[in-house]
């Protein structure tokens, strides 16, 4: 295909550098400097996709970020990105883009059948239709989701890398158009550290698209001069192709920088995109303005564009959007498009002006150039569907709310409409700035803000080039002087420009036809979400008075373009339907991001192994070599179980369990949280944070403790040892250690500052080796001479200092498995060597390393709880049958008062009980719901759930722990666990299945 619409000369493209690309599988070519959109137009492609709801054919509307229609799926496979704007993609060799939301192609789309049914697809259609019956949603959703999608998400991991940068600046200037450049220059001249950001690949903003002159020279030369001046200043950073997507509290901005224009080929060692987190002392918003269209019937047909976009394609890209153009306007500015197109040799059929007898300088020039101007008139119909063929024009009545006379048909394939310009107030709005309606200019402009911010130029509603330069220079000087810097040589007197005076616009939000809205063509406000004037009027009639509600009901402005073109006309039409003024209606709140940001950039480097740090114990490599499988316990990586060749998980865990019960096993318990507690008030502190009493715990002794939240619910548990007078070592659950330390610190610092207690995390100072099993004592005795292991000298729940294998060690005789058990703590650096030595020496006992799964089975056999498994933040000690650990004598401890709240005393609270399945081989699934009476199908009254469930190799049957309403009063009852396809009957039993007397661990 040839570039049928490329002009013979002109534009800022490099005609010596041809670029080949694919669109919907067809090979085409463009030039360096093109965007995908300009290259498509050069190839005569206007139709690029289908609309979201009606699947109407849609074409390119704009030349920038405001584009509602030209969304493409860029590239394939691991580099595919959905919903990219063709107007923002710099063309590169081999680019491969496809249309979104159409199948099989934009020219023939099956879902377009929706458009025949538009009368039954009004605003709120989904809410109204699919809410009944409620259960029907499951059926509808499948079809709606498939029909309603835009782009496709990638199915492979992203091949690119992304990163982040933190930056500080005296002045951040968003937008490098005339006002932004002017501001940057004056701020830099005052000596400020300046960061200038612009979303385009080149500086200049709107100047890139215009035929303006500054100081008698083409504006592009002025831009080049300013750029050179800025780049020569070491205190100025210029970020091109970078969008300020969010403006947050305390002058914090988020920027996204495109570091590779070429999506197809990743660049080695270079991130594709970078998120900049910028803290600015001052911010200057020079974000410019976006043109808004006139809202006329069937204004969505391919070929209906923004007036300014027409001259952008001609001036910047040397492309004529169509063969025969019509300009439709309510203001003078659009005449620039007519003039620039005419000057470039394009055909301009006419200018249709809604104003009576327009007479400005630009109008005069157009008439002098031989362009027909049809005044006081409006487009009442658009002919053609996949590309417009012509328009019908009629005369407006006095109030411009209707048309009169007969219609005239004008042949054309492109219409550029202009309803004026909207300042880009989005960033101002993000940071809680108010937007103020300026009626004389028909615009919202930035009002009060909490930020150290100034807006200038078109962003401030000052649309002329001269104003932009003046305000920019002033903003630069004002911002730096507020930072205490003295202005540089550059004064707030800017260059002279080729500006001309413009005459007033005429307000016309809705372009009438001979029938009411919706009855003769569709007036689209939001082209991406298919929201029409009739939809907004319907919402108003149905009582949606708040603009925020009307937005959500109609989905106006909720698409990926966030209503950049259609929102303000939409709010104006809502206002008029509600019979109120635009400021009374207000606007919806603009929220970040200004334009879509890829999830890859948000994640940055925090992917894969960098997603979350991994904590490894000193024995990690040994476990790895032994072939263990890993379990993640918070950030820790713990051995889960150690399968031998040919073993299933169940085989391995049963083998490990039996080894501990019959011989000896060893567990890496290093991850258990350890908090060193010192100070004269340490015992008092423990009394307050644990439910049981601590004053009488003597040095050398250990005690199990339960910690509650102030609401009486179990928060953590663990064994705490008295190391010396005023010195304790608290252990916490592996996952709970940071939370518990923070919790204790909070109480000490905020509520009990009078207590002299000091907390230190020592978790990683020690390696902890847990020897468990009947042979544990014999094995340990081979490694120590100075610790008397005799049960009388070293009883259960005590600790001893000494040496193990010559290493200084502290040995705790505590047990989570129910077996004779020693936890050997040595300096972390000695952990691996001691582990290895014990494994070798233990071979004669058949020593078996065991992992967390075996530990869980063994403790469940004993009915020992795991916080977070048997508890879930709603469980009290009494619920678990652990009243024995709640002191009745202590006057107070955290959570005590809550334990006697009315709700805590109910006798139908859930109790921890054991379950024995009728079939001893049946292992219940954890989380299984428990009922006392079964029915053929749900709903059934649930009385509890299974918290832990395992096969017990030692007992030869399955065991389960469960929380059941009033469970302790139901011992012996039969309950049921309904599962998929079967129901398991169980007997409620005591939760201690193994060695209820505790003789094994005490022995």
């Amino acid at each position, binding site marked *: 295909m040839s570039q049928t619409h490329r002009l013979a000369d002109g534009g800022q493209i490099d005609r010596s550098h041809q670029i080949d690309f694919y669109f919907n599988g067809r090979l085409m070519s463009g030039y360096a400097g093109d965007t995908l959109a300009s290259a498509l137009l050069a190839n005569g492609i206007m139709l690029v996709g289908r609309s979201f709801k009606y699947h109407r054919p849609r074409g390119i509307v704009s030349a920038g970020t405001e584009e509602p229609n030209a969304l493409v799926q860029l590239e394939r496979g691991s580099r595919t990105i959905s919903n990219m704007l063709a107007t923002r993609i710099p063309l590169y060799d081999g680019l491969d883009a496809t249309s979104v939301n159409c199948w099989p192609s934009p020219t023939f789309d099956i879902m377009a059948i929706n458009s025949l049914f538009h009368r039954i697809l009004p605003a709120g259609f989904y809410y109204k239709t699919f809410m009944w019956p409620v259960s029907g949603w499951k059926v509808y959703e499948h079809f709606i989701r498939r029909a309603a999608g835009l782009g496709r998400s990638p199915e492979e991991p992203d091949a690119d890398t992304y990163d982040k940068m933190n930056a500080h600046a005296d002045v951040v200037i968003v937008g490098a158009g005339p006002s932004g450049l002017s501001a940057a220059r004056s701020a830099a001249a005052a000596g400020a550290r300046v960061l200038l950001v612009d979303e385009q690949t080149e500086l200049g903003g709107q100047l890139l698209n215009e035929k303006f002159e500054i100081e008698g020279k083409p504006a592009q030369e002025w831009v080049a001069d300013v750029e050179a001046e800025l780049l020569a200043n070491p205190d100025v950073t210029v970020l091109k192709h970078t969008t300020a997507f969010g403006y947050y509290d305390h002058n914090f901005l988020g920027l996204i920088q495109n570091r590779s224009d070429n999506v197809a080929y990743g660049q080695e060692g270079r991130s594709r995109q970078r998120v900049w987190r910028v803290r600015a002392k001052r911010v200057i918003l020079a974000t410019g303005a976006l043109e808004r269209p006139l809202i006329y019937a069937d204004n969505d047909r391919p070929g209906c564009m923004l007036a300014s976009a027409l001259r952008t394609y001609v001036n910047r890209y040397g492309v004529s959007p169509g063969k025969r153009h019509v300009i439709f306007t309510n203001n003078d500015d659009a005449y620039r498009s007519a003039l620039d197109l005419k000057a470039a040799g394009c055909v301009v059929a006419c200018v249709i002006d809604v104003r009576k007898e327009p007479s400005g300088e630009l109008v005069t020039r157009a008439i002098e150039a031989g362009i027909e101007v049809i005044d006081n008139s409006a487009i009442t119909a658009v002919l053609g569907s996949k590309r417009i063929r012509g328009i019908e024009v009629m005369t407006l009545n006095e109030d411009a709310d209707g048309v009169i006379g007969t219609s005239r048909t004008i042949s054309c394939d492109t219409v550029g409409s202009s309803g004026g310009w909207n300042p880009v107030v989005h960033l101002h709005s993000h940071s809680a700035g108010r937007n103020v309606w300026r009626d004389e200019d028909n615009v919202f402009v930035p009002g009060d803000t909490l930020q150290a911010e100034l807006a200038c130029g078109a962003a401030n509603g000052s649309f002329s080039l001269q104003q932009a330069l003046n305000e920019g220079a002033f903003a630069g000087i004002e911002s730096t002087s507020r930072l205490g810097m003295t202005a540089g040589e550059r004064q707030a007197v800017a260059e002279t420009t080729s500006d001309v005076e413009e005459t007033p616009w005429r307000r016309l939000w809705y372009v009438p036809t001979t029938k009411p809205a919706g009855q003769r063509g569709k007036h689209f406000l939001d082209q991406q979400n298919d929201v029409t004037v009739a939809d907004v009027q319907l919402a108003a009639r149905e009582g949606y008075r708040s603009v925020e509600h009307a937005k959500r009901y109609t989905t106006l402005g909720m698409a990926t373009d966030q209503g950049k073109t259609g929102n303000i006309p939409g709010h104006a039409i809502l206002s008029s339907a509600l019979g109120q003024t635009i400021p009374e209606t207000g606007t919806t709140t603009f929220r970040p991001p200004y334009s879509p940001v890829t999830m890859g950039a948000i994640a940055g480097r925090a992917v894969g192994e960098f997603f979350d740090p991994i904590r490894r114990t000193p024995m990690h490599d040994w476990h790895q070599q032994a072939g263990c499988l890993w379990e993640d316990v918070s950030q820790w990586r713990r051995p889960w179980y150690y399968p031998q060749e040919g073993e299933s998980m169940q085989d391995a865990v049963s083998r490990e369990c039996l080894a501990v019960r019959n011989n000896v096993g060893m567990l890496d318990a290093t991850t258990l949280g350890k908090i060193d507690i010192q100070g004269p008030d340490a015992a008092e502190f423990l009394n307050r944070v644990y439910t049981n009493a601590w004053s009488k715990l003597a040095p050398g002794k250990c005690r199990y403790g339960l910690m509650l939240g102030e609401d009486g619910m179990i928060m953590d548990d663990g064994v705490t040892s008295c190391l010396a007078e005023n010195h304790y070592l608290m252990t916490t659950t592996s996952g709970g250690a940071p939370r518990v330390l923070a919790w204790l610190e*909070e109480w000490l*610092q905020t509520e009990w500052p009078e207590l002299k207690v000091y907390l230190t995390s020592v978790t990683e100072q020690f390696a902890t080796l847990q020897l468990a099993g009947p042979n544990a004592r014999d094995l340990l005795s081979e490694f120590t001479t100075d610790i008397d292991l005799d049960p009388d000298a070293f009883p259960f729940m005590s600790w001893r200092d000494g040496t193990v294998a010559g290493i200084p060690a502290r040995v705790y005789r505590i047990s989570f498995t129910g077996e004779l058990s020693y936890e050997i703590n040595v300096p972390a650096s000695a952990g691996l060597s001691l582990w290895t030595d014990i494994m070798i020496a233990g071979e004669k006992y058949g020593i078996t390393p065991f992992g967390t799964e075996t530990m869980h089975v063994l403790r469940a056999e004993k009915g020992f709880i795991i916080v977070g498994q048997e508890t879930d933040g709603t469980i009290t000690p009494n619920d678990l049958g652990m009243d024995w650990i709640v002191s009745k004598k202590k*006057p107070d401890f955290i959570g005590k008062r809550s334990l006697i709240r009315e709700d805590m005393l109910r006798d139908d609270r859930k109790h921890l009980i054991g379950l024995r399945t009728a079939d001893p081989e049946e292992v219940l699934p954890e989380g299984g719901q428990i009922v006392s009476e079964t029915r053929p199908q749900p709903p059934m009254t649930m009385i509890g759930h299974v918290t832990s469930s395992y096969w017990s190799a030692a007992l030869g049957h399955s065991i389960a722990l469960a929380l059941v309403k009033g469970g302790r009063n139901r011992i012996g009852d039969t309950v049921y666990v309904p599962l998929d396809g079967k129901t398991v009957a169980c007997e409620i039993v005591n939760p201690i299945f193994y060695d209820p007397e505790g003789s094994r661990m005490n022995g």
Partner: protein
Amino acid sequence: MFLITCPFCGEREESEFSYGHEAHIKRPENPESLSDAEWADYLFMRKNTKGPHLERWVHTAGCRRWFNVARNTHTNEILAIYRMGEQPPKEIKAMIDEKAKS
């Protein structure tokens, strides 16, 4: 994203800190003497202020110290920062009293 001046470390990003809850809620001396309703009031009830608000923050990724912040919850302006055990500045108290009246 606020900037918070830790009284011990100086100005840092909000991401280094964690929010606690409303400040100056003293734990009752004798919880057992309170009715369920009074205890629930201490336990659960917090002001949902639009405007100047006194709250606790902790410098989690720094010195791990708690301190008080007077913050306008509407504008996120940090009005004052003062240590645990201290009372808010007089002008902040006056501002809050004024708001309570209106």
